[in-house]
């Protein structure tokens, strides 16, 4: 991958990588670390992409895997309370409320919701990215939506 190609990919997809990582890991610092790892892999190994969608899918898939590795990596006694992590700044207070509600959702709902509703992946694609059956994705989307609605009403 040339520097120009890498810069272009970073410019276009770094936000997506970061958002996927944030949905997976919740903590912004961890999400940044995951995003760095993914982009480093792109720089080291990213070659032969057959079009824009292949690159995007490779990055999304790689981010999911890196986050999965980070979540199960053997860091011990790591204790950074989530409430001490800074959250993104939003133009409207209700967006901050929605963000906190999304981050309070159980992890298994956050990523399917994000990939489906924000990135626009189809249910089957979300399943392929996350290693889930389409029926499981459907269930998690429905329950995630329901939980989010309940949390916002409370």
């Amino acid at each position, binding site marked *: 991958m040339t520097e120009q190609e890498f810069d272009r990919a*970073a410019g276009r997809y770094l936000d997506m990588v970061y958002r996927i990582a944030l949905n997976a890991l919740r903590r912004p610092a961890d999400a*940044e670390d995951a995003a*760095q790892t993914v982009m480093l892999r792109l720089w080291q*190994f990213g070659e032969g992409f057959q079009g824009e969608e292949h690159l995007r899918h490779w990055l999304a898939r790689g981010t999911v895997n890196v986050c999965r590795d*980070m979540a199960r990596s053997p860091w011990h006694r790591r*204790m950074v309370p989530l409430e001490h992590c800074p959250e993104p700044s939003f133009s409207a207070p209700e967006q901050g409320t929605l963000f906190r509600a999304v981050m309070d959702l159980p992890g298994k709902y956050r990523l399917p919701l994000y990939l489906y*509703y924000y990135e626009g992946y189809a249910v089957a694609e979300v399943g392929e990215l996350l290693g889930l059956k389409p029926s499981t994705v459907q269930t998690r989307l429905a329950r995630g939506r329901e939980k989010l609605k309940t949390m916002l009403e409370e």
Partner: protein
Amino acid sequence: MEENYRAMFDQVRASDRLREEVSQMKMHKQMPRRRFPKTGLIAAVILVLLAGSAIASVGMPGTLRGWFAREWEESTGAPMTEEQLALVDDLTQPVGVSDTQNSVTVTVDSITVGNSTMWLLLKISGDYPAEETLRYHFRGIDMTLEPDPDQVETPGGYGFDFPYAAVAEDGVLTMLVRFTIDLAGQTSLLDAPRQTVLVLEDLVCNDLEKRGDEDVVLSEGGWTLTFPVEPGEAGEIRSLGEIRVPAMDLESRKIKTIALCDVEISATDITYVRSAEAQEWEPLRCALVLADGTAVEQSSGSSRFRDTACTEWSSVYYWQVPVDLNQVTALRFGDTEIPLSDG
């Protein structure tokens, strides 16, 4: 709600700092340093270590000496000197302990031990493909030391990373595991004989290039490797007392000068303490400057309170490779160099 959801995430963007680090990534072969999460926490530890992500690297040397020599050359641009190699030899102990599960034998070939870090060279029996995109690792890893070297009564931490894992030059699947522990500068892995128990779970592999690169289990099982770590000379320790260095508030990106006290530099790490009030101010990236002009930078690090009253915030950063301090002329934080006498 879907529209609000999308509008909300439109505003969640990678930070300028992350963009800058990714942009600079092209100049580095390895992961830039990780950051301390920005916190106002009290009596909580922040463990900052490289993620457990082994980067496959085909054709790496099959010995710790060979790996350090190559790592040195790649990170400094200069060949490792005889003095540096002699230091690596001093810190390296042969082990040769094995455990076999499901016909796969894992051997701890040798270890290189410093004050608060240990590199373990693992050899794994069997035939494995050597493609660069294959990423070998163990699904689980943990290690205990007896007696426990951590004598500080505040939350601390330890962790692992895999600087490389691949089929080495000798054709053997080889993994380099780096264990780091935050001892707050109070004790050393080398100050007493210790029994070490390394536990590994499930040998797995994934292919970075393939779509849907799920881990493939190569061999299920739990390997337990017990071996001694002999006490030894950690080499020279440079004590600097108090120094003043540039530090950044990671939230505001402001930089100011702060005081670090009890600064101690060893062949494998640097430890220092700052006041709890200065906890938010992270010293700029640290490096050792050698007489020939090369620099060895910090890699990962960790911080914790050194005292139960939570007044002394102690940090340790590990050098990328062991360094013979006799060759060091200065300590550098950002662009600020602090000359070391008798270097």
